[in-house]
C-alpha cells in the first residue's frame, strides 16, 4: 500500500516503461473532455500532459490517461493507479499535506456564473441567507465560498453538467468554480455570463505522491522547458484564444 | 334439495363430470364413493359453487347454479362444507373460527352467537379448546372444529369431502361419531365422500359410486352392501378397499 507506492521511484519506473499515467478530467470543457465522436480525451491539460511526457521520456514516451473526478483523483494517486494528477487541481496548503505539487501550470481564479441580467454581480451579493450557490463536490471552490459568502447555502453536485442544469432550472443563484471552467460553460450557454472577476487565486498544480521529489523535479523541469520553447503559449492560444471574455494574453508565460 | 340435470364440468379441456343426473332430497344422507380422480370432489364442490359447471342445470335449495345471476353467497349460507384438510382459519382461535361467519354473514347477536358456539363445541366434545389456535390441535380435533364451524351457520345441507382421510387411525372414530350424531339426530341433508365403509353401512340412506366422471351406481345402502354392487367396476373397487 502506502509503503510500496511510496518506496518506488515513480520516475525510474516510468522511464523504464516509457509511459506516464496521468489522472485527468474527462468532463471539463477546455481542460479535459471526452470527445463523443472519437472517444478520445481533448483539452489544454491533455495536450500539456502529452507534451510533458514527450519532454521527459523522449519521442517514444507514451501518455496514458485515466479519467478521474475531484473525488477519486487523490485516492487513485495514493494507491498508485495513476502516477500523477493534472486535473484542474488547485494548490492549497491543506492538499500539500497529502500530496506534493509542481509549480503552477495554470493560474486560474474563482469566479461566478449567473444568468444574464441577474442581480448578482459579485460574491458579496451572495452573502445573505436564502441564496444558494452551486458547486461540484471535491472542488476547492466550494470551500472558498464558506470564507467569502458564509451566509449562503452551498449545494455540491457530482458534476458540472448537474450544476449547470440546476442553475438553468433556478435551483441555485450562481454557479461557482474556476474561471477557466466557467468560461467553457458560458461559451456553450450564451445566455449565461461570468461575473465578479476572480475573487480568489486558484493556481493549478500537478500533484504527485509525497517522497517523489525526483519525479516532481522532472515535471517542473519539463514544464519550464515547454514554457521557454513556446509550446505552453501555443497550447494556451489553441484552447483559450477564442474564449469570449477570457484574457489569454495575461496568462501567457 | 339438490338436483343435477345433465351437468357437465370441465377443467380446461378435461371433462371432469359427465352427464350427471342426481337428486338428493332434504334430510337424506348420501355417501359418495369411487376411485381417485373419478370426480367425487368435483361433484361436491359444484354444489356450493366453489367450482363452476359448464352445462346442464344444478338446483340447490331452490337456486339455479347454472344461472350467472344467482348470488352464490345465498346458497353458501345454507350449504356447509367440511374439507379433507379442515381449512380452519389459521389466524383465529377456535371460538372465533366458529363465530366469525354467523357474525358477519348472519349478523347474529354476539351473546347468542357465543352461546351457540359453546353449545356446538360441547357437542363435538371440545369445549375446553375454545381459546386454542388451530395449530395447537390434532387433526381429529381440527376436523371436529370444522364441523362445528359449519353447523354454526345452521345450514340445511352439509357436504363432506373425505373428512377422515387425513387423520391418524385412532382419531377417525371421534370424527365419524360426530357425523353419525348429526345424521341421526337432526334433519340435515348430508352428502359424504368417504372410504369408511362402516360409516356408510351404518348411516347412509343411499350409496353413489362414481368412475371416470360418471355416476355408475346409485343404490340404497341395503342393496349396495347386501346384493353387492351391480357393476363390475364397483365390485372391483369394493374388493380393493375392503380391509383398510
Amino acid at each position, binding site marked *: 500500500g502506502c509503503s*510500496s507506492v511510496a518506496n518506488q521511484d515513480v520516475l525510474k519506473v516510468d522511464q523504464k516503461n516509457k509511459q506516464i499515467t496521468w489522472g485527468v478530467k474527462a*468532463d471539463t470543457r477546455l481542460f479535459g473532455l471526452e470527445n*463523443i*465522436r472519437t472517444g478520445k480525451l481533448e483539452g489544454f491539460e491533455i495536450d500539456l500532459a502529452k507534451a510533458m511526457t514527450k519532454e521527459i521520456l523522449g519521442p517514444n514516451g507514451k501518455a496514458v490517461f485515466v479519467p478521474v473526478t475531484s473525488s477519486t483523483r487523490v*485516492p487513485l494517486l495514493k494507491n*498508485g493507479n495513476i502516477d500523477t494528477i493534472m486535473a484542474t487541481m488547485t494548490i492549497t496548503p491543506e492538499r500539500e499535506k497529502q500530496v506534493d505539487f509542481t509549480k503552477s501550470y495554470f493560474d486560474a481564479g474563482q469566479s461566478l456564473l449567473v444568468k444574464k441580467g441577474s442581480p448578482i454581480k459579485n460574491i458579496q451579493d451572495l452573502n445573505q441567507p436564502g441564496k444558494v450557490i452551486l458547486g461540484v463536490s471535491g472542488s476547492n471552490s466550494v470551500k472558498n465560498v464558506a470564507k467569502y459568502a458564509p451566509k449562503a447555502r452551498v449545494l455540491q453536485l457530482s458534476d458540472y*453538467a448537474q450544476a449547470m*442544469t440546476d442553475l438553468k432550472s433556478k435551483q441555485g443563484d450562481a454557479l461557482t468554480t474556476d474561471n477557466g471552467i466557467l468560461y467553457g460553460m458560458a461559451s456553450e450557454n450564451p445566455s449565461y455570463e461570468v461575473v465578479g472577476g476572480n475573487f480568489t487565486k486558484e493556481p493549478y498544480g500537478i500533484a504527485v505522491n509525497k517522497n517523489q521529489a525526483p519525479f516532481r523535479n522532472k515535471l517542473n523541469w519539463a514544464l519550464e522547458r515547454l514554457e521557454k520553447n513556446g509550446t505552453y503559449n501555443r497550447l494556451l492560444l489553441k484552447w483559450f484564444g477564442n474564449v469570449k471574455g477570457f484574457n489569454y494574453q495575461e496568462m501567457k508565460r | 334439495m339438490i338436483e343435477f340435470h345433465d351437468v357437465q364440468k370441465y377443467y380446461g379441456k378435461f371433462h371432469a363430470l359427465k352427464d350427471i343426473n342426481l337428486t338428493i332430497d332434504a334430510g337424506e344422507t348420501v355417501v359418495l364413493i369411487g376411485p381417485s380422480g373419478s370426480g367425487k370432489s368435483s361433484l361436491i364442490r359444484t354444489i356450493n359453487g366453489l367450482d363452476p359447471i359448464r352445462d346442464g342445470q344444478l338446483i340447490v335449495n331452490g337456486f339455479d347454479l347454472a344461472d350467472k345471476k344467482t348470488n352464490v353467497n345465498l346458497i353458501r349460507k345454507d350449504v356447509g362444507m367440511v374439507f379433507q384438510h379442515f381449512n380452519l382459519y389459521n389466524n383465529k382461535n377456535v371460538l372465533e373460527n366458529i363465530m366469525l361467519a354467523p357474525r358477519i354473514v348472519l349478523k347474529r347477536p354476539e351473546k347468542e352467537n357465543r352461546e351457540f358456539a359453546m353449545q356446538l363445541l360441547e357437542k363435538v366434545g371440545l369445549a375446553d379448546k375454545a381459546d386454542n389456535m388451530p395449530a395447537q390441535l390434532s387433526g381429529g380435533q381440527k376436523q371436529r372444529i370444522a364441523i362445528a364451524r359449519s353447523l354454526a351457520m345452521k345450514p340445511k345441507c352439509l357436504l363432506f369431502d373425505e373428512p377422515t382421510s387425513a387423520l391418524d387411525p385412532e382419531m377417525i372414530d371421534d370424527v365419524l361419531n360426530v357425523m353419525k350424531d348429526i345424521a341421526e339426530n337432526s334433519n340435515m341433508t348430508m352428502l359424504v365422500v368417504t372410504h369408511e365403509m362402516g360409516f356408510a353401512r351404518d348411516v347412509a340412506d343411499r350409496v353413489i359410486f362414481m368412475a371416470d366422471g360418471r355416476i355408475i351406481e346409485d343404490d340404497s345402502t341395503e342393496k349396495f352392501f347386501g346384493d353387492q354392487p351391480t357393476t363390475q367396476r364397483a365390485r372391483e373397487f369394493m374388493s380393493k378397499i375392503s380391509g383398510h
Partner: protein
Amino acid sequence: MQNFIDAYSWVNIRFLLQGLGITIEISVASIICSFIIGTLLGIIRYAKIKYVSAIVGFIIDLIRNLPLLLIIFFTYFGLPNIGVKPEIIPAAIMALTVFESSMVAEIVRSGINSIDYAQTEGALANGLTKWQALRLIVLPQAIKNMLPALVSQFISLVKDTSLATIIVLPELMYHAQIIYGQNTNYIIPMFVALAVLYFIVCYSLSLLARYLDKHLA
C-alpha cells in the same frame, strides 16, 4: 422536440451504445463470478462448518448491510492496500462481485433450506453421504427454486452498475452524463434513453427467467 432529434444523433447513440456494451460486459462478468462465489459461500454457510461458517456468515452479513457505493469505494480504493491494483473495469467487476456474491450466498442458503429435509433423508438412507446428497439431490432442486430470486438479484446487479459512474467507469450512465454534460439541452432525451435502454436489458432478463422457469419445470 428539436432537442430530442439533435440528442439522438448517430454519434450520440453510438456513444450510448458503447456505454451499454460496457454495462453488459461488466454485468455478465459479475453475474458469472458472483454466481460461482456466492454459491460456494452459501453452501459454506449452510453446511455449519465449525468457525468457518460463522466467520463467513458474519462477513457476508457485513457486506450485505452496506450500501453498494461504499463497497465500490472500499474495493477500488482499498484493494491496492493489499497489493491488488485493478484497472477500472476489473475493479468494477470485483466490487460488484463482492457485493452480489454476498446477496447470492443468502439466496443459495435459503434456497437449500427450502428443499424439504426429507430429500436429504431419503438420500442418506439410500447410502449417499451428506455431500453427495447436497450435490446430486438438494442443490439441483434448490437452484430451480432460487431462480426467481437469483434473476431479480441479477437484474439489480445490472441496475447497480450505474453506481460505478462514481469511479468513472465508462458505462451507460456515465456516457449519458458525458453527453448531457456537453449540452445540457440533452438532459431529458438522455434520461429517456437511459430509462428505455436499462428497461430493455432488465426486462428481457426477467422474461428469460420466466421462460426458463416454465421450461425447466
